[in-house]
């Protein structure tokens, strides 16, 4: 990070006019800050993934398997057959350019290959040559090209410079979804053993231990107990959250980021306090201790392997339904993949809120409810005793995470919750929120340190919108419902908008929640004095 220029210097250096050299003649340049480190071979071995070895993107020789071209050709062929999305998206783009300036990485870097249309052309150019008649006859005139090692290097660069946020797909007249293109590109790269450690280590950990961070069961329990001590210090209330408890009504699953680092931990404390106050019959699981799924950023197969734990554990514990915590890509997996991959979940009941009687019929097949759906229902039915004044020291805005926004449509529930637990809420400009929301710049497994320059560039549109409300209304707290956001937004704010902190929605809920038998609270969950309790 120290090597980066000041924020305004960086912004001033962004150039949107492409170079004169045609893009096919510009090789990918691997310099620090714009790529992620390759996967450690031990992680690939745990997962039985191909070609585990030591290699570096800056090397000339990437130690590809000997028949790598054949592997890509066959892998491509297979995926064209398995995914209509890929086939249609390869064929129908007219290069109208509507997507070009919708990508946060393009806006923040000006690199033309970050225009979604060109990112897809990286694959299309190879597709045309190998799989279309025109491409075979007309060669380069049709925009096709040979599959060379340089092309593979370019794929590695740019499919790991896409956060699969789907913003471009909203604006595409044919719904071409770059997330889908990137997922296919990454699947193909994985066949050659080209993957990044920040994704493969969590996948291996999650597969083996149960969560991305590789926190073993006893440590998980220790962490939770430690947080309960903090809760007791602040509220005077002792909580003993159930774990691996058979016969509970609800299984609660959340991303491991929530119990690993600040400020996610405050959100986790918020869940525990809420469930305690409700007297909810729930359990967490040390086996299915991960809601997130970095398999999504690897391959459909890896995603399915990790996701399988959730239903398996729900069945073993005999719960009636599943409640899911605040996480972005986790909810893409739950909403769009889980039931198809690992269902049917016919051993559970249609989720029903035991406190309000509300039946979540929108989750009647998958049997999994989002925590903001759950809490919004509690608030609407006046179950909670809330004192939003306790959040009066905060001026809050809300960042829609890409996946809940564009792969689900979870827009009103978190807003309803926030507006009931905070008195000062301000929206960012409409082109930067809801379905048009901008990525944090670190999604899809790219929230690693070595990629910081691109993260800050890609996060610029989000940060700029925060800056707008920071300057206009004095906003000092950015709320979100995503664990990657909670890890990625703090350095982003520090760089572009100092003075704005990051919080999960349930941290705000817990601060406002007046619990039965609690002592008079002096501080919020972060240990900061509450309004009126300063000094």
């Amino acid at each position, binding site marked *: 990070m120290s090597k980066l220029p000041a924020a305004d210097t960086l*912004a001033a250096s*962004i150039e*949107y006019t*492409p170079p004169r050299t045609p*893009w096919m003649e510009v090789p990918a340049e691997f310099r620090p800050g714009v790529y992620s480190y390759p996967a450690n071979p031990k992680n690939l071995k745990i997962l039985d993934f191909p070609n585990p070895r030591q290699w570096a993107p800056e090397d000339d020789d990437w130690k590809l398997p000997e028949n790598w071209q054949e592997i890509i050709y066959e892998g491509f062929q297979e995926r064209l*057959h*398995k995914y*209509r999305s*890929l086939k*249609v*998206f390869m*064929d*129908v783009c*007219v*290069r109208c*350019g*509507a997507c*070009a*300036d*919708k990508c946060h990485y393009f*806006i923040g870097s000006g690199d033309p290959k970050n225009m979604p249309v*060109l990112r897809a052309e990286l694959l299309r150019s190879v597709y045309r040559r190998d799989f279309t*008649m*025109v491409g075979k006859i007309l060669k380069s*005139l*049709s*925009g096709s090209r040979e599959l060379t090692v340089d092309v593979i290097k370019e794929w590695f660069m740019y499919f790991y410079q896409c956060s699969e946020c789907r913003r471009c*797909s*909203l604006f*595409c*007249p*044919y*719904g071409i979804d770059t997330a889908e293109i990137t997922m296919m590109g990454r699947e193909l790269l994985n066949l050659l053993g080209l993957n990044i450690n920040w994704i493969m280590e969590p996948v291996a950990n999650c597969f083996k231990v149960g969560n991305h961070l590789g926190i073993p*069961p*006893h440590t998980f*329990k220790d962490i939770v107990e430690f947080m309960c001590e903090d809760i007791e210090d602040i509220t005077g209330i002792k909580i003993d959250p159930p*774990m*691996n*408890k058979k016969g509970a009504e609800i299984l609660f699953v959340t991303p491991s980021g929530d119990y690993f680092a600040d400020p996610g931990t405050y959100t986790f404390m918020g869940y525990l306090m809420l469930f305690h106050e409700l007297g909810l019959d729930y359990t967490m699981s040390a086996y299915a201790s991960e809601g997130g799924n970095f398999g999504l950023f690897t391959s459909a197969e890896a995603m399915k*392997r990790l996701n*399988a*734990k959730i239903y*398996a*554990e729900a069945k*073993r514990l005999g719960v009636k339904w599943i409640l899911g915590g605040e996480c972005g890509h986790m909810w893409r997996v739950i*909403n*769009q993949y889980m039931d*198809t991959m690992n269902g049917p979940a016919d051993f559970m009941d249609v989720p029903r809120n035991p406190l309000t009687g509300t039946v979540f019929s*929108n989750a009647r*097949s998958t049997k*999994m409810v989002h925590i903001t*759906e759950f809490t919004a229902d509690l608030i*609407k039915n006046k179950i909670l005793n809330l004192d939003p004044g306790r959040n009066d020291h905060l001026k809050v805005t809300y960042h829609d995470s890409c996946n809940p926004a*564009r*792969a*689900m449509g*979870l827009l009103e529930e978190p807003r309803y919750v926030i507006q009931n637990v905070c008195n000062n809420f301000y929206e960012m*400009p409409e082109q930067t929120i809801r379905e048009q929301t901008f990525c944090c710049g670190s999604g899809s497994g790219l929230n690693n340190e070595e990629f910081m320059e691109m993260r800050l560039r890609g996060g*610029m549109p989000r940060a*700029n919108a925060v800056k707008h409300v920071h300057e206009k209304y004095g906003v000092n707290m950015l709320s979100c419902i995503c664990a990657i956001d909670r890890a990625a937004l703090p350095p982003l704010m520090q760089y572009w908008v100092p003075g704005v902190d990051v919080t999960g929605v349930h941290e705000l809920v817990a601060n406002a929640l007046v619990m039965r038998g609690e002592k008079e609270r002096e501080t919020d969950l972060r240990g900061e004095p509450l309004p009126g309790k300063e000094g």
Partner: protein
Amino acid sequence: MNVLYSLLLVLALVVIPLIGAGALGWHTLFGVIIPVFAVLVFVAGFIYRVMDWGRSAVPFRIPTTGGQQQTLSWIKPSKLDNPTTTAGTVGRMALEILLFRSLFRNTRTQLTQGPKLSYGSSKWLWLGAIAFHYSFFIILARHMRFFTEPVPLPFEWLDKLDGILQIGVPTLYMTEFVILAALAYLFLRRVVVPQLRYISLPADYFPLFLILAIVISGVLMRYFIRTDIMDIKTLTMGLATLNFTVPENIGVIFYIHVFLVAALLVYFPMSKLMHSGGVFLSPTRNLANNNRMKRHINPWNHPVKTHPYEEWEDEYREQLKEAGLPVEKE
């Protein structure tokens, strides 16, 4: 260079009938054989492409959601931008196909000192696209009067409506101006906007020039290089009724027009113009966001290697017991 290649290719397509039907007088080839062949290629090619897409699986239901989901009864869902029902999905598709809904959202990003990013409304591309497609459609429908006898009333009305301004003899059609303006805009933005120029392929310029050449040859034939319209109708009715006749006195301009159309028909199924069929099959648009309500079936959902609880407990049994967590096997 891409522009030049495409332009030269279209000029070559003009020269071929000029020589073949003009100098050499091969009227049957250019008036009957080539058009019939082109129509067959178009129909077969279009069907093949759509069926080819149809052969690929739709493993997951992955709509891009553009509005509020359906959840709690008191939260208003966005029925068209985030449909959960078939009716809603059909509505979303209709908006997309008839009104170019997604393109209508278009914005233009600007970065200014500060740094300050702003996103202005940008509807020109939408307007150009709508103007082009609808005028193309009306022109196509107007031409049906060459292939029907008696001409059905809707085609007559469309013809009247298009010439409603009643300027000149023969009456000028509005669509001719609109399509020329739209094509000019769609071409100019490709060469003027640096990013667009950077991404444009010959396959982007070629259809623009080809359609432009078709329109220009049509306009020339109607207003400037007149040729007997009754003879043309005799020929076109012959094509429609498979009772082929080639009247003697049809001008070469007609054969140029028809040859260019034939080129477009043949080119169509193997080009990006197939977006007209593909838009119906786009999985991010034509599926409802009802995954949590109704299970979607993946035809190739093969089993995968997992790490079952039993194995996991075997690996962590001691730690689990030590931490006071329940185990299945002691």
